[in-house]
């Protein structure tokens, strides 16, 4: 547990020293969300209907921006090799890194989403559900994305390849995340969607660090 906290603290410290990277992903999220009304037209009823989908797709893309940086700098300066050699299990350290990635990219999205949701005329309850869904969903995105980031570490054209690998795997998170808000708006209740999202998160917390570790060991072989 100490090891995880140490890794999180280190990654957060590094992120704070290079604030621009964190802020870039955040502004990317804001800009993508703001582009949709410009492309679709200012009709309030339509925008309200597609708002959850837009916010979720933008969150997927913004999370992906940060993924390429998840392991690459540590790989470049040799930190990653030291982590592999350290007596602490690599899986724990990787879990810490994924948690730090979520705190720097996922959590700001969760906090910012309600503000953007207001632009789309979502009511307070729908905004609450959006926040809960993103709170369950963004860690899932970080966990699944970490597998892709580890697989493409040091590979030619890694960034584009990463999106090709990871985006199809994000489909369930997108469906249940955006679906929760939509189900609430249409009066069906968001409970089922949120439970499924939480179930997926539980599965991913268990399996994703393990797969990521295996992929990293192959990359560093």
């Amino acid at each position: 547990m100490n090891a995880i906290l140490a890794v999180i603290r280190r990654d957060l410290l590094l992120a704070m020293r290079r604030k621009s990277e964190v802020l870039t992903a955040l502004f990317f999220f804001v800009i993508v969300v703001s582009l949709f009304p410009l492309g679709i037209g200012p009709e309030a009823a339509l925008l309200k209907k597609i708002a959850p989908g837009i916010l979720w797709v933008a969150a997927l893309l913004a999370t992906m921006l940060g993924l390429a940086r998840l392991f690459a700098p540590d790989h470049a300066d040799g930190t990653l090799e030291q982590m592999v050699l350290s007596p602490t299990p690599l899986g724990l350290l990787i879990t810490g890194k994924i948690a730090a990635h979520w705190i720097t990219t996922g959590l700001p999205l969760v906090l910012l989403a309600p503000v953007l949701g207001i632009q789309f005329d979502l009511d307070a309850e729908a905004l609450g559900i959006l926040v809960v869904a993103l709170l369950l969903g963004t860690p899932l995105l970080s966990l699944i994305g970490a597998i892709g980031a580890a697989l493409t570490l040091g590979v030619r054209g890694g960034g584009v390849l990463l999106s090709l690998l990871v985006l199809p795997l994000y489909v369930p998170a997108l469906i249940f995340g955006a679906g929760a808000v939509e189900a609430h708006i249409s009066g069906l209740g968001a409970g089922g969607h949120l439970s499924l999202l939480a179930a997926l998160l539980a599965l991913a917390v268990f399996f994703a660090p393990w797969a990521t570790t295996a992929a990293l060991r192959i990359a560093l072989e």
Partner: protein
Amino acid sequence: MNNKIINWFKYASPQSFYPLAGKMIPWFWALAAIFGGIGLWITFFAAPTDFQQGEGYRIIFIHVPAAWMSMFIYIVMAGWAALGLALNTRLSGMMAQALAPTGAIMAFLSLWTGAFWGKPMWGAWWVWDARLTSALILFFLYIGFIALQAAIDDPRRADKAGAILALVGVVNVPIIYFSVKWWNTLHQGASVSLTKAPTMAATMLWGMLIMALAFWMYSIAVALTRVRAIILEREAHTEWVKELPEVKGTGQ
């Protein structure tokens, strides 16, 4: 018993598998041609015209086997990938790599023929039906696998990375399928459901099964041909490849 085990592992080496595959390929091609011939004859001549769908329904004799193969091949590929990771055999990775393009083609074919079928039947090239959508995502997974393997220069690393991706994919395929299914049912359902298939005439069923066999044989033949090419490429530095009659003449 002991002998059998040794026999199996004998063919795990590319050197002994290469000639074996070479011997098997003509047989699978022949079977593919025979089943394909019978299947196509049933498709065009023996199967009755559907009273609801007319002649257009005949495309399902290609569509359904292609869709089946696209799913089977992914599972087989993941199986080889798991074997490769567990036993660290070189041939497993080569088999997975050889299967991927065939699987991708099958997935593409099923989407393409599905669109041709959907236009006259549903009046739309594409509907966001659960099966169509998950088939599309399966196609993306194949493309991701092929792209990842192509991007990594070291073949051993490419095999292992591809194996992990294939396994992550195979865990996700059912999750994706059900999530898309629930997504679809919570939206307005598609007006025509594929799951409620009308009872089928026996000839049609037979035609479809024989076509499916033809697709199986074709896929095996193509995968074996491709794996032979991959073996030659990767083992080009070895003595036994240089000794092969088909390589010797070319003068490298």
